[in-house]
Structure formats: C-alpha cells, structure tokens
C-alpha cells in the first residue's frame, strides 16, 4: 500500500472529469479589476468571487496597504502572543468593537482560524454545540479540534432546532449550549431565520454564535450583518467574521459583549500557534471598514445588481436559492450538466463558482454566481445573457 493509495477513487473521478471536460481548475492569469480577469488567455467577467463591495482595487485601500508595508514591513514574523501584536492589530480590534458596538474583539489570521480558535476553545467536552447542518467547514473543524459534543439541526429549520434543544435540556439542564449559525449561507445565499432562532435560544437558555462571513457590509443599515438587519444584535452572544470577502483583505475576527472573550487569547491554539496578520492586510481591512461606513451607496449598488441577476435568471426558469441575495446559486440535478454549463459560461467569458457534491448542501450541483457592487449594469446583462444560452435543468 502506497501512501497515496487512499486517493485512488478521487484520482479516477478527476480523471473522468478531465477526459470529459478538460481542466476544471481555473488560474487567474491576470487580474484586471474587481470584476475582470484573464483566464485561458481570454478576458472574463468574474461572477464568482466574494468581493461584494468591489474593494480589492480601491485606491484608498491600496494606498493604506502600501503605506503600511513601507512603515511596518511585509510581515510580522510572529504569533500574536509573542512578537506579532503591533499597535495596528490593537487599533483594528478597537475599531471593530466600535463598529459593532461590542465590548471585546479578537482579530485572527483568517476567518477559518477564527472559527477554529473559537469553536475549539470557547466550548469543551462538558458543553454542547448545536449547529445548522449547512455550517461552514471551519465551524465543523473547530468543534473537532476541541472535542465538544456536536448535534446538528436541519438547515434553517427552527422547529428541528427546538426539538433537539428540548431533548438536550431535559437530559442536561445545567450544560452550556452554544447554537452556531451563519448570517447569509455561502452556497445558497439564504438568510438564517434569526429572530425565531433568538427566541428559541432565549427560551432554553442557550448561547448563540453567528458567522457573518458573507453578511458583513452586505446586510443591515450600517453593514453590521444579519444581526443588525433582524434587530437582535444585543441577543447574539458572539459574532465571527472574515476580512476576506466584503473587506477585500484577509483575516478574521470574533466580537462579543463578554469581556472574558479576551481569555481565549491565552487558551486558544489557533490564536497562539500561527503568525499574526501582516500590516498590509490590517491596513486594507481598516480602510475597507471605514469605507463601509462612509459609502453606503456601495451596498445599494450591490443589492441592485443582486436583485437584477436573481430576477433575470428566475425569469429564464433556473432553479435558484430561496431568496434574492448577492449569492445567486443555480441548481442542477446532474453534476455533469453543471460542469458543462460551467464550462460553456467560461467559454462565453463568464466565470462562476462550481460546487459539486458532497460540498453542496443537498446533493445537487450548484453554479454559484455572485455579484459585486463593482459590476456595471452591462456586466450583469452579459452574465444573464450567457446563462440564457443554456436550458435550466
């Protein structure tokens, strides 16, 4: 037995896909703007990113990042717990606390590590986690690292959540129970029924953590996410998020009104045993956070684009996610069909994300289109046009 033998099935599946469709890995040969790139030697519209506010090439963000590199260097070469906490990390944490109007914030090196750190440390073997079945891999991985007992409830199904909560409470009246959900789900772009979940959480004395990775800058009047939009920010115990989407940088955070959150810095391996965010990433994230406040028109444009694309694809009869959002997921029953449409779109100059089972929520195959505030109306039109050349099955 060779060490790679366990991948034999994967290798043969890849081989089949390659034989039928050619390569499925996209290399961005040159990135031209938040919405355009050269792929396979050809200019394509990027309709499969998480660049919701289109800030990757924003002048102010670039300038701030360049200045940070000149003044603070290219990397910190150390952990937050050693030589890797600069004044700028502390300021960013303070600014996030102000932005969310919370008492404590910790910044991590990615959103993935934020979830890994929080879910492996905040809860342990004596606690309980109840998570939405469609939660991101980083949430699952965090719970595995810490070994907390995990129970799943059906995606966005409050009744199912309550049923499990009730059983668990009866059995363990004293246990700390942490419910984990997302604001906007990354694959189908649907919102969590947050108000209802908050009501259930309160009734059974549980804690609530919401991952607003895809909703920061996208939902809520001030762009604080679903908790703000639903008017329940004071009932959400922990908010986790990332700088890698609307903030067009890289990094993650957790914010809370529990000042004890700070203790996790000393207990959490994914906080301690990795290098801290680079100065350029921090500067870009700080600038983007300010832009969220100063330019609300970006969010408006994002939603205009989202409604437009969702509406057009719906008209064409495509099977979409349950509600319009900047993530417009087109569902196909057969993975082969998704693959061939994906390839056809690329040939027509439109890049979308392809998500195949088992990574999809319900076993179907998805083409995940996503829009940005930076898309011009004619680009949204071009994306729709490209889809219209395929039948929606």
């Amino acid at each position, binding site marked *: 037995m060779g060490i790679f033998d366990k991948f034999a099935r994967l290798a043969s599946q890849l081989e089949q896909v390659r034989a039928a469709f050619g390569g499925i890995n996209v290399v961005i040969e040159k990135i031209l703007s938040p919405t355009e790139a050269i792929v396979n030697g050809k200019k394509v519209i990027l309709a499969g990113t998480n660049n919701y506010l289109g800030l990757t090439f924003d002048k102010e963000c670039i300038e701030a990042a360049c200045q940070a590199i000149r003044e603070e260097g290219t990397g910190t070469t150390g952990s937050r717990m050693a030589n890797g906490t600069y004044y700028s990390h502390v300021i960013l944490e303070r600014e996030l606390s102000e932005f969310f109007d919370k008492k404590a914030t910790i910044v991590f090196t990615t959103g993935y590590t934020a979830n890994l750190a929080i879910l492996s440390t905040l809860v342990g073997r004596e606690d309980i986690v109840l998570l939405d*079945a469609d939660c991101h891999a980083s949430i699952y991985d965090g719970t*595995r690292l810490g*070994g907390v*007992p*995990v*129970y*799943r409830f*059906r995606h966005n199904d409050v009744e*199912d959540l309550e049923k*499990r909560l009730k*059983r*668990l409470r009866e*059995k363990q009246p004293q246990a700390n129970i942490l419910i984990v959900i997302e604001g906007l789900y990354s694959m189908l772009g649907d919102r969590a029924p947050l108000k209802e979940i908050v009501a259930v959480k309160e009734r059974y004395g549980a804690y609530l953590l919401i991952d607003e990775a895809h909703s920061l800058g996208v939902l809520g009047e001030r762009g604080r996410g679903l908790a703000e939009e639903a008017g329940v920010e004071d009932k959400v115990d922990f908010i986790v998020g990332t700088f890698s989407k609307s903030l067009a940088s890289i990094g993650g955070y957790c914010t809370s009104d529990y000042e004890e959150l700070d203790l996790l810095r000393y207990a959490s391996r994914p906080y301690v045993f990795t290098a801290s965010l680079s100065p350029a990433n921090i500067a870009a994230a700080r600038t983007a956070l300010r832009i969220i406040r100063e330019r609300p028109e970006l969010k408006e444009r994002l939603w205009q684009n989202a409604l437009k694309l969702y509406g057009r694809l719906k008209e064409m009869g495509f099977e979409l996610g349950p509600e319009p959002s900047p993530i417009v997921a087109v569902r196909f029953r057969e993975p082969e069909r998704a693959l061939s449409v994906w390839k056809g779109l690329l040939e027509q100059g439109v890049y979308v994300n392809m998500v195949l*089972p*088992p990574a999809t929520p*319900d*076993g179907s195959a998805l083409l995940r289109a996503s829009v940005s505030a930076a898309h011009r109306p004619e680009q949204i039109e071009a994306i729709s046009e490209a889809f219209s050349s395929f039948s929606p099955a």
Partner: protein
Amino acid sequence: MKREEIFETLEEILAEVLQKEVEIRPETTFEADLEVDSLKAMEILAAVEDRFDITVPINVLNEIKTVADFAEEIEKLLEEG
C-alpha cells in the same frame, strides 16, 4: 428496548431513507454495503433521533461503521435516558 427491536426499527428507517428494501445483519456496513453518503447519513440520523427520541452527537459517527455499531450507540443513548 431489546437489541432485536432496535434492529427492526433501524431496518425500517433505512428502507425509508434509502427507498429500497434492505436486509441488514449486524456486520452490514453503511458505506460499502448500503452506500450511504453524507447526506443520507444526515437523514438517517434525524429519523433515528425522532423514532427513538434521542439525540446523537455527530462526534460518534466516525466510529460507526456497521449496523451493530449504530445499534450499540442507540442502546447506550437510550440507557442514558
């Protein structure tokens, strides 16, 4: 609840979820014999929880390879109450 009853109920649940007649023995494996993927596993889990009125932590799923493993886990959870 006796082991046989657990087996019978499991057989019913599997037939429902997999939408085919299944004949299970203690050594029947979920992955190789019954071709249960991660989505089906989720459905089976939910049905088992409802039918037996228990909650099964997903942490144990990695350890469950055969029907006997699952029955044993269910029995344990039932005893815990």
